């Protein structure tokens, strides 16, 4: 510790003395040039060729956009066709951010079918619309082999997001958890298979309850 302080003090002293010498030297050298009458800059003219450093214009492909179709099980309200759009931004080779928007129409509940009573929901209230913003992690990057000569890059990923679902006439806070597999058919074109669970509270039958709405979709996305 003591040696460190000593080094610090010594280096401080050196720095100070250095400043003092350069200060002292300045006027002397100035008088020398005026005395001889020769401009020091004309003795050696620097021939510096300035290179322009430009950022290389390389096409980056970190965005991914596409559409999906599949089936969605709306809890108590049958399994229905779902279609949607997906936009992702690849942050690194491991992580990506994604936004989803999906649409489906819920069917008729078993209760409505069996009891023959008045429908619980109107047609417009049966519309199931959701959005989700979240992150994904490419857990298992790899390759898919078709036959002996073809290999396609692939990845299995996990996703988690939060968003909102419009169902039964209200917007409902939704947590979306999922897993998927992506196969790159071309460098810029990917085919996906996704399983997602949309977790939300629904109060159609009077009491609010947590519902799990599973979805399986296939999609095509393009990198740009």
């Amino acid at each position, binding site marked *: 510790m003591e040696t460190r302080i000593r080094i610090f003090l010594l280096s401080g002293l050196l720095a100070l003395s250095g400043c003092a010498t350069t200060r002292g030297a300045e006027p002397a050298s100035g008088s020398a040039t005026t005395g001889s009458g020769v401009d020091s800059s004309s003795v050696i003219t620097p021939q510096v060729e300035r290179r322009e450093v430009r*950022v290389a214009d390389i096409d980056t492909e970190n965005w991914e956009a596409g559409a999906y179709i599949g089936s969605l099980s709306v809890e108590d309200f049958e399994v229905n066709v779902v279609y949607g759009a997906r936009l992702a931004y690849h942050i690194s080779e491991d992580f990506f951010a994604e936004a989803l928007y999906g649409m489906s129409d819920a069917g008729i509940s078993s209760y409505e079918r069996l009891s023959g009573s008045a429908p619980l929901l109107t047609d417009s209230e049966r519309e199931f619309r959701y959005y989700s913003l979240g992150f994904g992690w490419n857990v298992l990057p790899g390759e898919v082999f078709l036959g002996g000569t073809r290999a396609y890059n692939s990845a299995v990923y996990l996703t988690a997001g939060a968003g909102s679902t419009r169902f039964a*006439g*209200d917007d409902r806070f939704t947590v979306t958890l999922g897993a998927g597999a992506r196969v790159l058919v071309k460098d810029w074109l990917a085919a996906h298979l996704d399983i997602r669970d949309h977790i939300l509270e629904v109060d159609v039958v009077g009491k609010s309850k947590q519902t799990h709405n599973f979805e399986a979709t296939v999609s095509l996305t393009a990198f740009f």
Partner: protein
Amino acid sequence: MLALLLCVLPTGLNAAPVTVSVADPYLELHTGPGRGYPITHVVARGEEVSVLKRRTDWFKIRDDRGREGWAHRDQMATTLTPAGTALAINDPSREQFGEHQREVGVLAGDLEGANVLTAYGSYAFNPHLAAELRLSHLLGNSSDGTIAALGLTHVFRPDWRVQPFVSIGTGMIHIQPKATLVQTPDRTDQLAYVGAGIKAYLSRRFIFRAEYNKYVVFTDRDDNEEANEWKLGFAFFF
């Protein structure tokens, strides 16, 4: 949200690929843009390669024998352009964090017991002061709502890695009671907010953001309403 994202998309694609020569002893070519993909080719020092595209940290290149593969950014940074300079890869860095102009992000949190999801975009006039547009979706037990607000944020120390900021602004709030409750009319009121928070640099162009806001809703009843909001989220800058 889409509009916010679209405004930050990269523009302008190059026609001719960039050509560089390998300066490392060799350049390793992977089959895919990731460290787990096998290396199938190497390009020796002095050979020229064309850079076709880039995905995250990986560059797709083609050598003069037509072989293609993906090389990592760290190796590409040592390659030389025809001018003899190192390939300039201008990735956002910690230094640019304090000087960025555009920022887009999403936050989630709590506003008086309701879940709130916010997307925002901001434009900085200088390193300290930025205009910010926020769109929030409120999801409560008894009502839903949306808030659109425009405000100013002031960053005290743009040179710090964790930057404290304060904000002030005004906007509109639309509240819609839940369909299952007794029908009460929707309300639209003006509001104002003050807030404080932090922005922390994570890596590349990513920021972690945490903030507290206090809202005053100017209702047409006798009393104004006050609301507290906490939220956390991520943003990226350009």
